């Protein structure tokens, strides 16, 4: 039977309960906790592909934020196309706007990811310095292309009518869109767990993250698998970008790049190549950012860096290290 390391979930629970004791007000605590979970799950959607890409092929893709930005811009354009449905006073009609927006964002980012892997990444396999330089350069070029297509100005991305505002449960206010983010994030995590644990492709991905040479020696073409993972990871980043854009209600060309520090913190905290670690790390980052922002705003900016330092002092390979050979 598989053994689960319950210490990271216990740590999360301890932080959540510790925050309740420090915040004092249960209603504020619930609001902050839901906000932290939503933020964490959105970061997880954006980061999960990157951690697999790094784990599987040791590729350092500094342009991952590009797929987030493309997702956000495509979502903004799609919602404009479905303006009638987005503005309607019906949740189902609103879904008719945001679901196509999310799908279009994922598809566009996935296609861009395919081209990016073929043109930018493929020539620099195994060369980390070149990967950093060329993916950073690719991102700069792509950001200028976004300016060409969508212009340099901030693009509004209003949430659909029924997803604005908050639910009031007693004296607890919960933003509606955060619940959507939580539901989508959990659905993505569940789908990834099913894929990784219940399918042969998932087994191959997990095995490839550990020892890609042995996977090839068994007759599997790891490069094809990697292209698939890269495209799927890019599509997830696009989906995350669409949701993050709606969360912010606006899109700029730097929306992806601005998330990259948090995304790198999450995948390092989680353990490079570990989906479970990425999930736990994202929740940790989201919750700590919200709790610290409320309790000690002056140190909020550095709280996630401090969190990373503490986690790495405790577990230098991350929360759920992947054994590599």
């Amino acid at each position, binding site marked *: 039977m598989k053994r689960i390391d319950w210490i990271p979930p216990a740590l999360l629970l301890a932080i959540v309960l510790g925050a309740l004791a420090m915040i004092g007000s249960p209603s504020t605590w619930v609001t902050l906790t839901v906000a932290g979970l939503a933020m964490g799950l959105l970061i997880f959607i954006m980061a999960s592909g990157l951690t697999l890409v790094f784990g599987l092929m040791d590729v350092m893709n500094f342009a991952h934020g590009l797929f987030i930005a493309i997702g956000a811009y495509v979502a903004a354009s799609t919602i404009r196309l479905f303006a009638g449905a987005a503005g309607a006073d019906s949740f189902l009609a609103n879904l008719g706007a945001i679901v196509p927006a999310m799908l279009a964002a994922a598809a566009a980012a996935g296609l861009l990811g395919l081209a990016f892997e073929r043109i930018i990444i493929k020539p620099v396999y195994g060369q980390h310095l070149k990967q950093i330089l060329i993916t950073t350069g690719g991102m700069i070029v792509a950001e200028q292309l976004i300016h060409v297509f969508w212009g340099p100005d901030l693009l509004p991305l209003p949430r659909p009518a029924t997803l604005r505002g908050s639910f009031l449960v007693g004296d607890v206010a919960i933003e509606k869109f955060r619940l959507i983010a939580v539901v989508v994030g959990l659905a993505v995590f569940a789908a990834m767990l099913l894929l990784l644990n219940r399918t042969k492709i998932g*087994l191959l991905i997990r095995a490839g993250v550990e*020892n890609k040479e042995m996977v090839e020696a*068994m007759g599997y073409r790891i490069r094809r698998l990697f292209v698939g993972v890269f495209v799927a990871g890019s599509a997830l980043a696009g989906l995350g970008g669409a949701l993050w854009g709606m969360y912010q209600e606006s899109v700029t060309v730097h929306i992806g790049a601005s998330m990259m520090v948090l995304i790198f913190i999450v995948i390092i905290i989680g353990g490079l190549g570990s989906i479970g670690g990425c999930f736990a790390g994202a929740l940790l980052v989201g919750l700590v950012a919200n709790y610290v922002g409320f309790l000690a705003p002056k140190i909020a900016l550095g709280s996630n860096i401090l969190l990373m330092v503490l986690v790495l002092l405790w577990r230098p390979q991350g929360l759920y290290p992947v054994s590599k050979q």
Partner: protein
Amino acid sequence: MAESLLTLSGVHTHIGHYHILQGVDLVVPRGELTMLLGRNGAGKTTALRTILGLWRASAGTIRFESGNIAQRDTPAIANLGIAYVPESMGIFAGLTVRENLVLAARRGPPDEKRLDWIFRFFPPMKKFWQLPAGLLSGGQKQMLSISRAIIEPRKLVLIDEPTKGLAPAIINNLIEAFAELKQTDTTILMVEQNFHAAKSLGDSVAVMDAGRIVHAGRMADLAADAALQTRLLGLSLEAHQ
């Protein structure tokens, strides 16, 4: 002697600036267990890795059955029916025993009869079926690595030092398993430092030194010739029994 399944002719391999294999000529007869012996650094592991395409031969031909596989990539070579048990064992520690074996079975789910056959060799594989492979002992990991290689009938199994670091009781267990595996049609090319195992299992033998084959013949002949052992390997098999 049986017909050749695998023939290396004038194979050279460079790793970076190092010239490791310097014209290897090796014949692996079909249906036999060929031992590849030699001192540390002679090029035995590089020879196995070059056959599988993990290192690319810089010159020479590697004929498997009727085709030259020297310039083919590793998955294509493996799919010809060649399995590999590396010195590091190469198990996937985060995957269970079952998942490791499912992955190794290319033609679909593992065959039940084949699994029973493997469980007879290696009972811990059945006992720890759902356990993550990283939690197995060293000997059990080696059993898993070999089980993966034979989960389906293979034409050729390349095995690199299977007894390295294992307790004597486990080594005897492995020797028995290989002896039974020899009764099937499987051809095996095995690198081995344990001379008791080499003598017990080998049909034919090739000895490497400085990147070349310096002796090839029957294992029984080498085992019976102490002077030849001393000249080729710097030691006597008798001293290791």
